[in-house]
């Protein structure tokens, strides 16, 4: 491996350096666009006491739900959880801590972390319990809440295509949180469906430039559908 080639040869190598107690950011919305093989590798590896930030926490037996099985997650930062029974049980038993964060704040907190912005003001949540204990400020005639950036020790991302330099394109709504997660990780690991040579992707079509990406691996994906809904 040389220069800008971000490829690693195994999932073990992709997640090397992830340690107990670290903060992990994970892309995906529901089960759409989740880095399913990287999550499976974390389960295999057995890393514990993780703080995981992701919009949701998967379902029983798939996605981030896998990391609940061996109690690898200590704290979950998400906008919507509880699609899985195991999550509910660990929460009620006090084995799992949850920080519920408005979805737009979660995305912007990650973007801010990647963009070098330590905090930002937003009207979201003003006057609600989400704003309790946080600084507020009046701009014009509206109140705003100071929300802090959310950086990660590791970020795991699911892309569609990438070149070997780690320039990534996402497919359809599988983009969701992935580009923001990619920006916010100290170590950003991306798994994709196809890796091509530099120059094969249109530079203007790149969603995540390789500068944000540290490691890249090509995988195969189950892409489980959470709510299959078809026209009658």
């Amino acid at each position, binding site marked *: 491996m040389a220069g800008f080639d971000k490829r690693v040869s195994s999932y073990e190598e992709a997640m090397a350096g992830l340690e107990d107690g670290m903060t992990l950011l994970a892309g995906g*919305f*529901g*089960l*759409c*666009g989740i880095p399913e093989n990287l999550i499976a590798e974390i389960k295999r590896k057995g890393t514990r006491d993780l703080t995981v930030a992701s*919009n949701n926490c998967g379902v029983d037996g798939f996605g981030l739900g896998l990391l609940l099985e061996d109690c690898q997650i200590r704290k979950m930062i*998400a*906008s*919507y*959880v*509880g*699609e899985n029974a195991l999550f*509910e049980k660990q*929460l*009620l038993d006090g084995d799992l801590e949850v920080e*519920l964060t*408005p*979805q*737009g*704040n*979660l*995305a*912007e907190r*990650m*973007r801010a972390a990647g963009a070098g912005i330590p905090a930002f003001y*937003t*009207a*979201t*949540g*003003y*006057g*609600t*319990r*989400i704003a309790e204990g946080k600084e507020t400020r009046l701009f014009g005639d509206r109140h705003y809440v100071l929300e802090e950036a959310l950086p990660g020790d590791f970020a795991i991302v699911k892309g*569609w295509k990438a070149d070997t330099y780690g320039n990534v394109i*996402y*497919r*359809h*709504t*599988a*983009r*969701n*949180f*992935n*580009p*923001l997660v990619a920006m916010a990780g100290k170590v950003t690991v991306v798994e994709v469906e196809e890796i091509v040579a530099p120059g094969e992707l249109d530079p203007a079509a790149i*969603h995540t430039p390789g500068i944000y990406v540290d490691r890249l691996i090509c995988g195969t994906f189950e*892409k*489980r*559908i*959470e*709510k*299959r*809904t*078809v*026209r009658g």
Partner: protein
Amino acid sequence: MALTREQMAQRVAAELEDGFYVNLGIGIPTLVANYVPAGIEVMLQSENGLLGMGPFPTEEQVDPDMINAGKQTVTAQPGASIVDSADSFAMIRGGHVDLTVLGAFEVDVQGNIASWMVPGKLVKGMGGAMDLVAGAENIIVTMTHASKSGEPKLLQACTLPLTGAGCIKRVLTDLAYIEIENGQFVLKERAPGVSVEEIIRKTGGELVVPDSVPEMTVAG
């Protein structure tokens, strides 16, 4: 007669205007898409990053990479665009969405809305609701006028944890269309066959009743 869910959706749809970008929440709001008046175009925004949401797919069109904010498989309409979650909420927070329709547990005379948690019950999260109510200028809340046990949901002050403060101006229930003005509910329309007395009885917060309250127009 109280409005059915479909009739509520139909009444909300009458508020759509040509060229509106609209975010529809889960439940009754989703049904509004079925009643877009003839001759106008609206584009649906789904906060997971899809602007220009189309109908549900056929079996052949199902694509795990194409879902809506309710995690259902969907399609994109011609002219759609897809963005990441930060850009999607920039549209919402930045006030670019023309109309947001969402459900609630309670609304009060100050325009406060509670829709995301009931203490003592398992809390699943607010998803994008707090961002939506804070960002949109134009919001319609849809909910039943009273709970199943008959408790009012239009209150002097919300009892449940808030989703947003002072952000709601319009509420459509199965009994009435109500606007919030100067710290009061104002009864604008009633469902066909529903008496003003019934609406007064089932409203918890201060309700102003004009001399004439027309019946709303909905199809059977």
